[in-house]
């Protein structure tokens, strides 16, 4: 125990769910649930091994390894479902959880109503070629050096920096999904993200800028990350925004930059296309399939198979392979994102979008990599088309109300005057409602790019990608001072 391990602390030395004995245990449990009268039984097993660390200024100030195991058991009776999660993966622990879920639905345990369960299919092992991913990740020492290099570069490239932070997080997850329709699938997921943040201060002037870079399934991401260009990008933005004046509120055209600009589509429209919203009756688009809901310049996609993208999956958390789902095509609403419960309750077919943060959540229809497709314009043509407006180079976070109204902060913005990018402004927020804004996206450039993010919703926080080319919104409310 005295030697310095080359591995990151907490590293799992076995792949728990590759053990074939699980099949027998799970079949027994699912058979029990089916005999009690459940229409559907699903068991989700999870084994995680995560680490995160933080560098502040030129010191590693926090190293946080964590690991967990658990199960989520979901039982359906008609359209109702009972869900129980537990950390206890013993035979008794899982049986107790199943009994609790069956009890919630008042299913008569011990009375054999029916048993349509024919056993699990052969294991579909999406993780078989990923067993070494964890070991291919950088050691803690390598990781710390790289992140410290990042904060050191911030110091070299930045001015008036009061705080410099670099962070790294690695999330490794092994999952096994078994269900009474025979679904039996295993996967290993690896997500890594790197963040650089600065707070610049000069007298009363302050600006804080952050960037995150995330991938899935790329153990060498941290090794291949270029801290030089990331640090330059962050420092340049921080300095520009440090002395920026507050933007004046009003209604104006806006050009939203590519990459993280896509967060607005994700929040303001994407969530309203999830069947969880359709079920609740909170989406204004629930009866609009085949109808125009956006400008014909807009085609929007949600998919789970872009190589290495933060929201990519080999299978969703219900064991289904992800699909490329066309949400909007030339302005016409084509599809919703659906999971198992969504299909059951709304009739919209599953799209491989059943996702959850962990075993403590039931899966729900969620986005993966969501983006507006590229158009035919060059980015500068969008800027040149605006006499007076706002260029939103970098978006902050935002939120969407239950009836579709959204609000997003703009981290880095510039005025557009006479078709040219002018002075930086701060304090801008974009306010609107998806139904009104989608028809106002009139121009899409040809520079589609994606950005990693985290999305919090009904089934917890999940990794997603947002994206778009530069787009122009003809008119949007800008909040300011």
């Amino acid at each position: 125990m005295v030697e310095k391990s080359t591995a990151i602390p907490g590293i799992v030395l076995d792949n728990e769910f590759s053990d074939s004995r699980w099949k027998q245990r799970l079949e027994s449990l699912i058979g029990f649930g089916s005999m009690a009268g459940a229409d559907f039984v699903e068991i989700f097993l999870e084994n995680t091994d995560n680490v995160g660390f933080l560098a502040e200024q030129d010191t590693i100030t926090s190293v946080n390894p964590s690991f967990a195991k658990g199960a989520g058991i979901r039982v359906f009776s008609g359209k109702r479902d009972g869900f129980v999660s537990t950390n206890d993966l013993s035979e008794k622990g899982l049986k107790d959880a199943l009994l609790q879920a069956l009890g919630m639905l008042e299913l008569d345990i011990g009375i054999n109503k029916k048993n349509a369960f024919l056993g699990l299919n052969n294991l579909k092992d999406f993780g078989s070629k990923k067993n070494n991913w964890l070991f291919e990740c950088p050691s803690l020492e390598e990781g710390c050096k790289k992140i410290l290099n990042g904060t050191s570069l911030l110091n070299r490239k930045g001015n008036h920096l009061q705080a410099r932070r670099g962070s790294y997080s690695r999330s490794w997850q092994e999952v096994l999904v078994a269900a009474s329709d025979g679904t039996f699938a295993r996967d290993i997921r690896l997500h890594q993200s790197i963040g650089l943040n600065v707070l610049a201060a000069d007298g009363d002037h302050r600006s804080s800028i952050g960037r995150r870079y995330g991938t899935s399934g790329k153990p060498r991401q941290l090794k291949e990350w270029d801290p030089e260009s990331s640090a330059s990008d962050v420092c340049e933005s921080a300095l520009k925004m440090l002395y920026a004046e507050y933007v004046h509120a009003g209604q104006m055209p806006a050009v939203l930059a590519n990459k993280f600009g896509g967060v607005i589509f994700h929040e303001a429209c994407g969530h309203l296309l999830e069947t969880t919203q359709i079920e609740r009756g909170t989406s204004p688009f629930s009866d609009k399939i085949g109808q125009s809901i956006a400008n014909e310049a807009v085609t929007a996609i949600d998919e789970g198979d872009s190589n290495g993208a933060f929201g990519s999956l080999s299978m969703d958390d219900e064991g289904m392979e992800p699909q490329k789902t066309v949400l909007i095509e030339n302005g016409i609403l084509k599809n919703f994102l659906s999971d198992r419960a969504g299909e059951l309750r709304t009739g919209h077919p599953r799209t491989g979008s059943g996702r959850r943060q962990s075993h403590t959540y039931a899966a729900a229809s969620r986005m993966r990599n969501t983006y507006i497709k590229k158009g035919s314009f060059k980015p500068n043509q969008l800027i040149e088309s605006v006499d007076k407006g706002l260029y939103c180079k970098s978006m902050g976070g935002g939120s969407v109300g239950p009836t579709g109204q959204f609000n997003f902060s703009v981290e880095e913005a510039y005025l557009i005057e006479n078709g040219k990018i002018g002075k930086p402004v701060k304090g801008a927020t974009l306010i609107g409602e998806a139904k009104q804004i989608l028809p106002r996206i009139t121009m899409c450039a040809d520079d589609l790019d994606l950005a990693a993010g985290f999305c919090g919703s009904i089934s917890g926080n999940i990794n997603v990608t947002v994206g778009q080319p530069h787009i122009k919104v003809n008119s949007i409310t800008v909040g300011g001072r």
Partner: protein
Amino acid sequence: MDTYNPANQKLIEANNILDRINQITKGKPITKWDIGASCSKDNSVQVDKGEAKQMKGSQRSAITVRVWNQEGIVGITSTSDLSDCGLEKAIYGAYQASLYGNKDEIPSFSPLSKAPLPELNRPIKNSIGITKLLELLKDSENKLLAKHPAIKSVPYNGLAESNYERVYINSDGAIREMERSQATLYLYAKAEETSRKPRSSGSLRLALGIEDLDIEGCIAETAEKTISHLNYQPIDTGNYLVCFKPEAFLDLISAFSNIFNARAILDGVSLSKRDSIGKRISVPSFSLYDNGLNPAYIGASSFDGEGTPTKGICLVDGGEIKNFLHSESTARTFGVNPTGHAGLGAKASVGPDWLEVKRSSKYDLENSKYSLKTTKTTFVLIESLNALHAGVKASQGSFSLPFDGWLVKDGEKISVEAATVAGDIRDLLQQIVDIEQEEITTYHGISPHIWVDNLTITGEA
């Protein structure tokens, strides 16, 4: 059959954990250790138009282990696996992490980790089980829908009960244990009228147990709030006199609690500096306390993540900063005692428990200008602020937040269709023009209505 209900059993045994960790660390190059562990059992239900939608149950456990290696450096690991194997792996992980620990700032045990704990006097309430939860929630949904014909659905709702236990143990002999029961009800209704946009609003209630929940109050408040937004109009962009309802003001001041956070100050990301004690940050009539022991605080703990007893503390009095919130490490740096506001970490986080906004003794009654009940001047009444995670730049002081509220003219309330309020917290605290007398207890603190002049509001065109 009855629902399966395994509640009312002891979830976590501190002495058992202590024995096992002593065994595991024996002979290892670990000079001292401490742990924080928790276990919980929860039941929750959601309904949709009179039918059960989802019922959930969970058993969760978590443990965070902190170890000091032979060089005195700290490492930490968290796990949900409380088995011997899980604990051993966590201690190994924490030891490995300690080899990369921060030599410049080493946390230690809180000097108060064995000090007497305050009496919380929170009786533990029994679980009622999922079947009764479901009946209660169906009934609540029905009653809410019956309140007004425009209320068409309750798309977000939930009734939950939980039992939670937590321990803090260190190798110096500190053993802290606490347990808590909690019940939660939220109702979020959607109302629609022909040719008008749907409007929605909601309410939340917390209590120690289901039988203590103010269910009728939650139904009535949700209905009242939702209906009050049916008659809406856009608001002109401009500067307004604003009255914050207590919930809204508490949300705002909580989002900027880094002003009082010693951790943030040391990290250079607070609006305060080390020498800010005694500095004026608001009008003299404003005072702010943090009091995690307030009887109304349902989620209260008698000790923090480092085992320090929870206590009430004055943060601002008469407009001047009086104290900061501390962990063991920040307190040592500032030369004071920890205040009971820390998490457990290699670098412990710090945060407030339960904020209480009050008029200070410097409040001049004779200059009292505004009152929600009598003011006839035009003002904006902000009921709740949204998207705080996105619209608050805590290290810069600025905020730009969508809100639900009303434009009040001559006492008549007209719901604001969609709007954002923006400003700087430092300016806002200086622009407070009145603090009402009545202190209102909410689920996350206490505050009167707060009146602020000249805030920018952007309406959606």
